[in-house]
């Protein structure tokens, strides 16, 4: 309930806001009216007089539709708590190729300016948001616009009526004033539901955005995967493979020396044994980095428990029973938890960590929470571990929420929806 004292303020603010909405929503109808008026003025006897107003209406409506939508969105977000994503296409980067030409995502241009202009027009012209904006400029004046025009219209009627000498006009004028004052606090409010309903990104736009996002993710994933495979190949080639070759050599030499110099042969055998042991140790580390054995053997919950045992902190793990997801998802979440535990040891100087793995009650996905009592101040920097964690989970539409005020505690919540698990 509004307090009595602020009612005049409410009326004043409401009146100003109603005027603003009326101006914004009536811009394009005013343009049409102007075009029609022009056509009528010039049109006496000239059969081609309709072309100018039609062109004016076409170009003007298209050019004005986006500013009108932007202004409406601005007013609604400023006055209310509604959040309306705009969903306009963003222009990509313009890069110079080794040939000297500029690539703008659509084609090559000779200069940077040409490339930027070309890109601007293409992005603007191909944006699916244009149709939504045009539709909105048609809807707005007929709904919120009409309502918002009431207070200023009645005030105008009051001014006209009270200025007339006859009583009936004065009574009508006074009535207009009363109505204007009564409606003013409410009249502008119609713009909110209309904007929320019709200014959201349309399904087609959401789909286009999603495709773009997935394309970027796919590129990310393939690059990361290729790098990973290269690393594994290098490790195998320089480590275990080379050692096994040396091992074969030692054994061959020992075989030759068996008869002539049994002592040296025995020493070589011992070397070979040591070599085999160390190549095994190397391979063990490598497989652990690819997929930890407990994860493949027992799944996520036990793998995290095993990880907690290897961490020199007090780690308390709780997990819902029977929590099994697809191996790729489990692997991503596991390495995420591992990253966070490492951070807790290395950076946060924590002494206790709590890990919780649970089914998300809302959509049967997975939620993993890691909380430590360290000194806080964790943030996802580019190229850092936390950013990598975001990327790793983004492939499954997962999200990472970090809350880490200076002085701690640090709380990280990873969630993966069920479509991917």
């Amino acid at each position: 309930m509004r307090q009595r004292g602020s009612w005049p303020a409410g009326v004043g603010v409401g009146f100003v806001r109603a005027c603003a909405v009326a101006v914004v929503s009536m811009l394009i109808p005013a343009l049409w009216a102007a075009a029609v008026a022009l056509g009528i003025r010039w049109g006496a006897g000239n059969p081609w007089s309709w072309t100018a107003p039609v062109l004016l209406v076409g170009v003007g409506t298209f050019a004005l539709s986006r500013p009108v939508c932007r202004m409406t969105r601005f007013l609604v977000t400023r006055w209310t708590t509604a959040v309306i994503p705009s969903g306009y296409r963003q222009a990509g980067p313009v890069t110079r190729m080794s040939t000297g030409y500029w690539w703008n995502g659509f084609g090559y241009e000779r200069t940077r300016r040409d490339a930027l202009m070309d890109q601007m027009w293409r992005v603007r012209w191909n944006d699916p948001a244009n149709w939504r904006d045009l539709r909105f400029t048609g809807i707005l004046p007929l709904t919120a616009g009409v309502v918002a025009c009431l207070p200023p219209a009645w005030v105008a009627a009051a001014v006209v009526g009270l200025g007339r000498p006859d009583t009936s006009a004065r009574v009508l004028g006074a009535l207009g004033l009363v109505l204007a004052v009564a409606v003013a606090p409410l009249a502008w409010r119609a713009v909110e539901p209309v904007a929320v309903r019709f200014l959201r990104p349309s399904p087609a736009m959401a789909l286009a955005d999603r495709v773009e996002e997935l394309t970027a993710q796919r590129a990310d994933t393939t690059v990361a995967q290729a790098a990973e495979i290269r690393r594994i190949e290098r490790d195998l080639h320089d480590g275990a493979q080379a050692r096994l070759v040396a091992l074969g050599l030692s054994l061959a030499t020992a075989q030759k020396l068996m008869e002539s110099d049994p002592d040296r042969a025995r020493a070589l055998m011992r070397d070979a044994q040591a070599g085999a042991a160390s190549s095994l140790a190397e391979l063990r580390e490598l497989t652990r980095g690819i997929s930890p054995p407990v994860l493949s053997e027992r799944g996520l919950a036990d793998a995290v428990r095993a990880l907690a045992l290897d961490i020199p902190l007090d780690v308390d793990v709780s997990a819902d029973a029977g929590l099994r997801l697809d191996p790729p998802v489990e692997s991503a979440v596991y390495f995420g938890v591992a990253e966070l535990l490492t951070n807790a040891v290395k950076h946060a100087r924590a002494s206790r960590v709590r890990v919780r793995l649970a089914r998300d009650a809302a959509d049967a996905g997975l939620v993993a929470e890691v909380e430590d009592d360290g000194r806080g101040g964790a943030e996802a920097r580019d190229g850092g571990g936390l950013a990598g964690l975001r990327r790793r989970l983004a492939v499954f539409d997962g999200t990472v929420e970090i809350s880490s005020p200076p002085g701690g505690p640090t709380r990280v919540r990873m969630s993966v929806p069920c479509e991917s698990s």
Partner: protein
Amino acid sequence: MRIVVAEDLYLLRDGMVRLIEACGHQVVATAATGPETLDALRTWRPDVSVIDVRMPPDQSDEGLRATLAARAEIPGLPVLILSQHVEQLYARELLADGSGGVGYLLKESVFDADQFIGALERVAAGGTAMDPAVIAKLLAGSAPARRLDRLTEREYAVLGLMAEGLSNRAVGRRLFLSESAVSKYTTSMFGKLGITDDEDGNRRVLAVLAYLNP
């Protein structure tokens, strides 16, 4: 000794059988899957068995599960687990029943035939044979760490070797100490940790492991 070998990779299984038979023991049965392993353990009740953790049909921890199931039916059935990795989690599960006669070693331990057969015999006698890496991690674990702080470096080393399952004499050989010196260390160490000292080596090891394994 009558021994069962459970390992899914033919080359390894064959090599292990040959090694065991070369040392004068008898392999009574081999198994290559989890269910086969459990059957062999039930049927033969071997003096000791050598079992791999990861086996068919579903390449999870089949061998470990067969072992735990068999030991639940036949308490103290001696089993030596051989794996490519040693995991504290699995070590704790094996030690949980506190009846001894368990070993958990890396597959490399077969490289040194004498030590491997020694570990087999120790487990068959109801003792333990634990991989040093597991013991080191257990020692570094958080719960009893505060009390371990009071041990001297020497006592700490003795504790670790004892937890692996070595006798006083073997600990002495590793640390270049006399047997009597080792027993002096163990007495003072047990006093500090509040573990009752026991003449029987195996019960002592179990006490240590129970202490480390909260």
